[in-house]
């Protein structure tokens, strides 16, 4: 929000640019990211910060982030969706059925899958709005229902197994496949490898064949969500609906429509992730996305979203996802015993958010 009023008011002190930056919810989480990075620079194997190491932790971060951006938007709009983790499995199952069992091409299967997800989003939204129940409990019901349907569906599709396979073969030749799986900029990376700029395997192929597409989607989504939130009327409605649904409705914001759209967006994000995961893995099972709803919310909260709604940012969720992804994968590069993993994960999370907070308060002079 650029301000162009002349700041000649004697009631205003001058403020450093850092203070102004740190006040923005979208940038508050940077301090935590720096802390975590420094920690791993010191403790982790140097392989972590090679190109392939970075791709390696960015890729799960990006997958989490795609969920987290959806979750963040919805949280800013004042609601939760606990069913996104189950949606990853459910949408994966639907997508698998369309591609493997029905043999549809991606250009049909992907829109259909996304439409299915959006439909569930509408149901979540309408139930929440019409009953006036908290979205926590409504989407919780769908957490169970979707997960259960996935199990039943997979068994029906495979004749008893909970794992559906053969997706890689079914999609390998599709023109749209490169958009949703594998790596982008392969040619560029191959050229860089030939000229020795990036590492190669003994057989001459580059260690990093390209940028995993999920990272591009992640960045794209974060930018798009930020644009919508900060630069469009719809973004204003999202903040208003989450800040105080009553006041927003009284002021003429179409709160119900906004919330329903957000539920749809969140579900579609989950389905998008499901499609990418399924195409990358070539298989799907009934436990995909387990507890991802939780991780998505964690990333959004690390990134500065308020659970009570009305405050937060997509860029915050972006950094939050990177922090979370880095901590989860980073341990692999350290000498720490796996038994201590959870202690370490919890400690790092706490440290990152507390550090963040301390820095922000120090810099902006709050309290």
């Amino acid at each position, binding site marked *: 929000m650029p301000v162009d009023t002349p700041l000649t008011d004697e009631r205003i002190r001058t403020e450093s640019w850092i203070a102004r930056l740190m006040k923005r919810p979208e940038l508050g989480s940077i301090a935590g990211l720096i802390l975590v990075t420094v920690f791993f620079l010191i403790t982790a*194997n140097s*392989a*972590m910060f*090679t190109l*392939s*190491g970075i791709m*390696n*932790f960015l*890729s*799960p971060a990006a*997958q989490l982030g795609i969920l987290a951006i959806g979750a963040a938007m919805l949280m800013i709009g004042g609601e939760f969706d606990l069913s996104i983790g189950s949606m990853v*499995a459910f949408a994966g199952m639907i997508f698998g059925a369309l591609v493997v069992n029905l043999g549809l091409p991606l250009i049909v299967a992907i829109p259909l899958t996304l439409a299915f997800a959006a439909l569930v989003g509408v149901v979540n939204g309408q139930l929440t709005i019409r009953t006036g129940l908290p979205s926590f409990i409504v989407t919780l019901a769908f957490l169970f229902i979707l*997960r259960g349907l*996935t*199990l039943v569906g997979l068994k029906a599709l495979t004749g*008893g*197994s*909970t*794992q559906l*396979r*053969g*997706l*890689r073969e079914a999609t390998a030749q599709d023109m749209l496949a490169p958009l949703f799986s594998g790596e982008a900029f392969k040619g560029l990376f191959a050229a860089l490898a030939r000229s020795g700029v990036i590492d190669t*395997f*003994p*057989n001459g*192929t580059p*260690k990093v064949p390209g940028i995993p597409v999920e990272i591009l989607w992640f960045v794209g989504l974060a930018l798009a969500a930020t644009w919508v939130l900060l630069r469009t009327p719809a973004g204003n409605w999202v903040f208003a609906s989450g800040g105080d649904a009553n006041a927003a409705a009284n002021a003429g914001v179409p709160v119900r429509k906004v919330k329903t759209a957000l539920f749809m967006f969140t579900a579609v994000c989950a389905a998008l992730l499901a499609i990418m*995961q399924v195409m*990358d*893995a*070539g*298989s799907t*099972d*009934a*436990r*995909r996305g*387990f*507890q991802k709803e939780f991780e998505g919310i964690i990333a959004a909260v690390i990134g500065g979203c308020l659970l009570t709604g009305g405050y937060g940012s997509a860029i915050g969720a972006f950094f939050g996802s990177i922090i979370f992804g880095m901590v*989860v*994968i980073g*341990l*692999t*590069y350290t*000498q720490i*015993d*796996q*038994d201590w*993993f959870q202690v370490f994960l919890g400690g790092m999370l706490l440290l990152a958010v507390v550090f963040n907070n301390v820095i922000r308060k120090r810099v902006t002079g709050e309290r």
Partner: protein
Amino acid sequence: TDIVVVAHGQANDPFWSVVKNGVEYAAQRTGAHVEYRSPETFDMVAMSQLIDAAVNQHPDGLVVSIPDADALGPSIERAVAAGIPVISINAGSDVSKKLGALLHVGQDEKDAGMKAGEKLREMGGKKGICINQEVGNVSLDQRCAGFAEGFGGNVKVLPTSSDPTEVEAKVRAALEADPEIDTVMALNASVAGEPAVAAVKALGRVGAVRVATFDLSAGFLESVAQGDATFAIDQQQFLQGYLPVDFLALYAEYGLMPGGNVPSGPNLITQDKAAQVVELSAKGIR
């Protein structure tokens, strides 16, 4: 020598904690530096990322379990392409060779389930339930599927959480709702096996309902010894942790490697053997 183990079971899973103990024991004996890594839940996507992370550090050997060859295949092939010797454990004996692993240590979950099912059918079982505390975890689902196949069909899966109280209540409910059930198969000794024994006891049907379990726990073994439970299936998973590390250490040093897969189980622990195993189980070795 640096060796990394990436398994699909968590460090706090009773079964996998024994594997991990085997890994550590081998590390101690061979002097290799070994790290054990696993995803936080049964998550194939996360696991493939952990394998990638391991490959990046270019260890002298990699040990992986392969519950989903489709999802993990590319990462394992990448490790092989990078020149890292790979040994597979536990799940994936069928695809191990194809993906380029040197050999497989362990035993297929489904086979183990089948052996148990056959044994229970021989003992006179007609109708059974299979307690699955993590439906959707493919390796657990395979145990149930194998059991159903070996048992001869009349098997229902009872999904539960990993809360012993809930398991006990559900087993009681199932047994009361259908008095014909005479066989209970648990997929985990401490989480499901022990509560199942308690449920049968509370209903006063010890002996009429046979309880068996995958894996071991000291408590369950005591029940076996006392005759309250029938048997426990031991995969000797300590070996699945110990042997690959030992093999890879030798391979790194002298280039030695056995010529074929090593089956680590199954091994049915019945009343006569149970007492000896209790202590080892309490220490996390069996």
